[in-house]
């Protein structure tokens, strides 16, 4: 018997979750190596300049922009988990803005084109987007319609003579809005007040160089400085009928569908981001001395790390279990909302605690910790606020 039967803790061992295979781990390694070597060194510079378009080209060349996309369009044909791996490893760039710019391209704008687009549309936009030669963005939010997506006012009116549509309106907080080649645009096409609230919306693929598309201004923001965020105006923008994406009048449903996958990817990024700043802070706590010892060896600091580790592990299990359901063909809106809500919250909490443990150093730009907090803060607002998530969860129980 005895002690030989009892497992000794091995805290350095690999903790591979059951959803991942060895192939996923290899992919993880190769993405991480690339990110640390080619992206991370530029993080500070890109905070000032935003990251260059060449990042898309380089990642397209490496096959990282279409990991879970069909091979027929130049993707790698991987499962949903491969996109989780990318979301997790990109955090090593230490640039939330970069991660967001990429995610909008691969996980927000691309899925609806693949799901609802015609073959021509996929050839025209998805193929070059996976290759990194064209950049995508998504236009939902408007100056007067944020969480309340049904309040969108951008109008697309059909010209019965030519069959073209003429678009007028404004979109704001559009990530990649300045650099994008095309926007997946949510418009209202039928204003009949007797329609159900979510009917009468239509998606369009609008080339950003079309006449009447105005990139109004680069919006300044709390964090995510490496990304470009645009206010866009559409003034009599004329597009052919072939620019309609999916079914006329069904745009709201199309976009709601795609938000689910995006939320879970975002949640995975939050968990990985929290883990990353946790690891950096743990290192700091083992080196930084105060009152004669490493600060990590003070009990209250040790307990802070225990609490953070618990939050991160919990969020990770929420995300992975939900991803497993998603990959299995379930459509777990409730669980996705929970994972998104919790991961975003704890990422901000962990980043804040990491600033606290760093003390003055945490407040300084040089250490990169305050940037994590600023970047993470968006996750409680973007892609559905905390309050919208709570509403979705509560309503799922008939409340």
């Amino acid at each position, binding site marked *: *018997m*005895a*002690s030989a*039967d*009892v*497992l*000794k*803790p*091995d*805290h350095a*061992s690999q903790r591979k*979750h*059951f959803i991942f295979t060895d192939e996923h781990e290899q992919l993880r390694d190769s993405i991480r190596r690339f990110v640390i070597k080619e992206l991370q060194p530029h993080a500070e510079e890109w905070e000032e300049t935003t990251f260059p378009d060449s990042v898309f080209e380089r990642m397209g060349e490496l096959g990282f922009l279409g990991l879970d996309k069909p091979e027929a369009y130049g993707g790698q044909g991987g499962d949903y988990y491969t996109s989780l791996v990318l979301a997790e490893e990109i955090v090593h760039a230490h640039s939330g803005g970069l991660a967001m710019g990429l995610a909008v391209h691969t996980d927000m704008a691309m899925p609806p084109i693949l799901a609802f687009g015609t073959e021509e549309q996929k050839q025209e936009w998805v193929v070059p987007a996976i290759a990194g030669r064209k950049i995508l963005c998504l236009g939902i939010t408007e100056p007067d319609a944020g969480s309340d997506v049904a309040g969108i006012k951008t109008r697309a009116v059909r010209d019965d003579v030519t069959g073209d549509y003429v678009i007028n309106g404004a979109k704001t907080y559009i990530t990649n809005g300045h650099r994008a080649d095309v926007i997946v645009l949510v418009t209202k096409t039928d204003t009949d007040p007797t329609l159900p609230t979510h009917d009468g919306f239509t998606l369009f693929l609008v080339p950003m160089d079309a006449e009447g598309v105005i990139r109004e201004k680069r919006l300044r923001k709390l964090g995510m400085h490496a990304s470009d965020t645009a206010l866009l105006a559409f003034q009599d923008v004329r597009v052919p009928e072939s620019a309609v994406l999916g079914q006329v009048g069904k745009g709201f449903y199309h976009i709601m569908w795609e938000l689910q996958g995006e939320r879970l990817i975002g949640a995975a990024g939050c968990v990985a981001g929290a883990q990353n700043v946790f690891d950096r802070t*743990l290192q700091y*706590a*083992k080196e930084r001395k105060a009152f004669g010892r490493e600060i*990590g*060896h003070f*009990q209250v*600091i*040790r*307990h802070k*790390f*225990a*609490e953070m*580790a*618990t939050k991160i*592990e*919990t*969020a990770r*299990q*929420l995300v*992975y*279990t939900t991803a*497993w*359901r998603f990959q*299995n063909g*379930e459509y*777990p809106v*409730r*669980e996705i909302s*929970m994972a998104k*809500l*919790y991961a975003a919250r704890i990422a901000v909490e962990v980043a804040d605690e990491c600033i606290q443990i760093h003390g003055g150093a945490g407040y300084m730009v040089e250490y990169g910790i305050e940037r994590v907090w600023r970047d993470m803060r968006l996750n409680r607002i973007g892609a559905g606020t905390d*309050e919208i*998530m*709570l*509403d979705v*969860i*509560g*309503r799922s*129980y*008939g*409340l």
Partner: protein
Amino acid sequence: MSEPAPAPPFTAEHERLRLEIRRFVTERLRPHADAWEAAQWFPNDVFRWVAEAGYLGLGLSDPVAAAVWVEELARCGSGGLAAGLGAHTGIALPPIARFGTEAQRERYVARGLRGELIAALAITEPGAGSDVAGIRTQARRVEGGWVVNGAKTFITGGVRADILVTAVKTTQDGGHHGISFLIIERGPGVSSSALRKLGWHASDTAEIAFDDVFVPEENLLGAEHHGFYLIMANFQWERLLMALGAVGAMQVCFEQTLAFIHDRPDLRSQQAVRHRMAEIALELQAGRDVTYAALRRHVAGEDAVREVTIAKLRTQRSAFDVIDACVQIHGLDAPAELERALRDARLGPIGGGTDEIMKEILGRSLGL
């Protein structure tokens, strides 16, 4: 719509078992909860009922099935009953099953699983709680065995137990390398008395005194002086059981509260209530997912100290907060069962290793 697949490590077979157990618990146990709580005791026969239904030994054949049992047992409406059963089957018998000799297993485990004998695990002492290495109960070597003197406290099932699986000092210094386990049968020199407590009323929690108790050689459990490993080994399972129990308790209270709100149009229309319930549902799901992850690793035979510690820490305070929120939503309409669940849940952050001890373990696992 077909039922979604159960998350690993549970199988469709386990989900069938879950429904069976749920029925047993709600039909055979739950109707007695109020009376047993009031009596501060449940009859020893209950062990036999559970044994006859085939659920008492689940943990020794399939820990995943035992996990199902513990989750569903939360539906009995008495944390004390769940604890009383769990102390025997999930905490006291497993070390004998795992580390005992053939004769010990036959004499204690086999009878214990038939509900003919009740066991309790006795570690904590008046002067040594979280600091297990500090126990002082002394076993002095004599011809053919040991003589034990000392005291134990907060021993669940300790009033009724026929045997006490007891941690004792077998060296003068004790500590990590001087603790052994003895299986002490109730007899001359063993006395116990019940303690009153905030919750867990249906269970008997004992203060136990050993006064020159002779324990024969063959009742040494595991290797002499290696008792600390035994304690550590079983802590993982005990903590997992607590995490599963908390998940089960949250589930029951959530369901009750949801049903209550659906019957109350004035509450159902309130956004604050909707969000409160969403927060509760999130706590439940978070606790469940993090606990199942630890369970997967544990049943796979891998080291799961960190995962189990996290699951225990994540669920205990959370269950108390969740049930408190359920009470708040009910207001003064809160049924006795919910108020009882709140008292019962308060032990979670204390028993089986306090939240603070969990943080110590986690922090040290990070090299701090």
